[in-house]
């Protein structure tokens, strides 16, 4: 009924001050909720990026018995795996790696860590480690240094080493024999994870293989990037069927803390939004109760002249809906503007942390708008407002 919608819309502007106040309150609430969620999404994404891009990649393949002990003798045939991966459309990039435990020593000290042998061109497509090497910190296997090794800045500090410094590498080959050789520091990287930095170093695959006593085509690990991140489960399942004698793991299995972060992120977002919705419901009830009770005489008149209770109720619901939609639009617009403003520079929250701590995520957060969150807000906020209006309607129609 057009007249009901007309009346409902115009009723919003009867008490401009009060309506304006409730619109501002809801708009600010929607902005806080949506921007908060976008910051949370951004942080979550940066955590995933840090770990997945730098550390685990999206999927990894190992020989079944490779396990966490990094058994050198448990290697895979690169050609077999490569052929299989080329048949899977969803796989975009793959880096075929060697992996072993090693001891790095200088005259100063020794550190034990995991040594990863990579092909540079393959590796830079699945990992962003190379992007963390500053211009004064060498490079990722681009120089003429013979047998270069890329270590973290924190490892370099412990070893008292710099670019071009000699490092003695000690490792165990496939037959258990200790091998020793010298490498030179070619690059210094630094991620946001102290744990990763202290436990990982990179060398060229071709420089490492002679010391492992394994075939030329042997590999220990394949790091994979797929077309769409959401396809990880599907690709994992596919690869498990194509390579039944291999161990296929997804990023959250490789780093269970990420899985926990993912789950907690979901719960925290839900609780945050729940609190927001409860506050919204209470404030809407209060506002509409005030608004309808002072018009009780008017509603009685409308009923007397023949406007049925359900139409009066509909009119009140439409008033709430129009008010809420105006507020949501303003709130979401503010969120989009804020997200756009900070999308390039990010929001640096390092003042909240001790300068020396790096826990695996960047302190710069880039708000990320997820369309699904916006749809939730656009649907749920009006729905809750309408539910909150039912009590005032019941009171006025009594």
């Amino acid at each position, binding site marked *: *009924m*057009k*007249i009901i919608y007309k*009346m409902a819309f115009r009723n919003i502007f*009867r008490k401009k001050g009060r309506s304006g106040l409730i619109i501002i309150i809801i708009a600010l609430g929607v902005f806080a909720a949506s921007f908060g969620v976008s910051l949370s999404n951004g942080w979550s994404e940066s955590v995933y990026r840090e770990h997945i891009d730098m550390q685990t990649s999206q999927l990894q393949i190992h020989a079944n018995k490779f396990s966490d002990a990094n058994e050198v003798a448990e290697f895979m045939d690169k050609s077999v795996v490569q052929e299989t991966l080329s048949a899977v459309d969803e796989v975009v990039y793959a880096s075929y790696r060697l992996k072993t435990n090693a001891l790095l020593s200088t005259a100063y000290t020794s550190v034990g860590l995991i040594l990863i042998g990579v092909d540079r061109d393959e590796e830079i497509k699945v990992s962003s480690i190379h992007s963390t090497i500053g211009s004064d910190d060498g490079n990722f296997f681009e120089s003429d240094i013979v047998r270069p090794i890329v270590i973290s800045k924190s490892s370099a500090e412990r070893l008292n080493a710099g670019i071009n410094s000699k490092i003695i590498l000690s490792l165990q080959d496939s037959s258990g024999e200790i091998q020793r050789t010298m490498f030179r520091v070619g690059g210094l990287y630094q991620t946001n994870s102290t744990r990763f930095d202290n436990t990982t170093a990179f060398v060229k695959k071709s420089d490492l293989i002679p010391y492992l006593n394994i075939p030329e085509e042997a590999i220990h690990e394949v790091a994979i990037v797929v077309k769409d991140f959401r396809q990880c489960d599907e690709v994992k399942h596919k690869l498990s069927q194509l390579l039944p004698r291999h161990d296929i793991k997804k990023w959250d299995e490789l780093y269970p803390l990420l899985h926990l972060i993912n789950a907690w992120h979901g719960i925290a977002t839900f609780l945050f939004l729940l609190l927001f919705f409860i506050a919204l419901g209470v404030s809407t009830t209060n506002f509409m109760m005030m608004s309808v009770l002072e018009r009780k*005489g008017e509603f009685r008149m409308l009923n*007397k*002249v023949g406007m*049925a*209770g359900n139409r009066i109720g509909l009119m009140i619901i439409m008033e709430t809906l129009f008010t809420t939609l105006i507020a949501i639009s303003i709130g979401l617009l503010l969120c989009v503007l804020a997200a756009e403003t900070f999308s390039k520079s990010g929001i640096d929250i390092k003042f909240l942390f001790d300068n020396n701590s790096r826990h695996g995520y960047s302190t710069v957060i880039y708000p990320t708008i997820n369309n699904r969150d916006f749809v939730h807000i656009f649907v749920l906020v009006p729905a809750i407002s309408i539910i909150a209006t039912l009590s005032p309607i019941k009171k006025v129609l009594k």
Partner: protein
Amino acid sequence: MDKLKDNDKSIIVRTEELSKSFLNGQSIIKATDRINLTIASGEFTAVVGPSGSGKTTLLNLIGGLTKPSSGKVFVKGTDINQLKDKELVNFRLHNIGFVFQLLNLIPVLTVEENIGFVMELQGADKEQRIARTAELLELIGMKDRAGSRPSTLSGGQKQRVAVARALASKPLFILADEPTANLDTEAAETLLNTMLLLNEKEKITFLFSTHDPRVMNKARRLITLEDGRITKDERYVR
């Protein structure tokens, strides 16, 4: 008092032993007491009496706005108290027009929209509604205020618009409860003349409660209530 039967086509309203009592603490107050009344088509009837005589209660009972303690109200043969709530609201919408003492108009609608309001609730054709609204605006002399909001009108103007709205859907009759109570002499006079004009032109039955002598002087039938009972029922040729 004229005794007219239901099968007389001119009878719009008939009450039978209509009584309404209210509980006031421990005591029972009889607002109306066994009222038997008929209202015929085209009447311009005033229900008069001192404060507390039951005028408003009688109008509310006839309009279906309150249920009687006993007795019946027939509107065009329909016992309105047998109707369910929704049916009663619908019945009022299509058959009875109302003019109240206060709060007649919808503040957010214009004069034009207020007049067309009941017709729109009824689902009347848009063109028909526009034509009827224009006709009534002309009749009440407010064509130039069609787009105005009620807050910009005087008390008398508001009441004239209320009468036009009540009339718009051509109801069986219009109930007006103390329509001139808050008006000055000039405004009251104008309103009454408007109502008389509409009564003559549109042949709409008016039944109103009042203790305003200006209204009493214009009515063609005066029903006097005292302590909830009809004590006088007089017709006048004016």
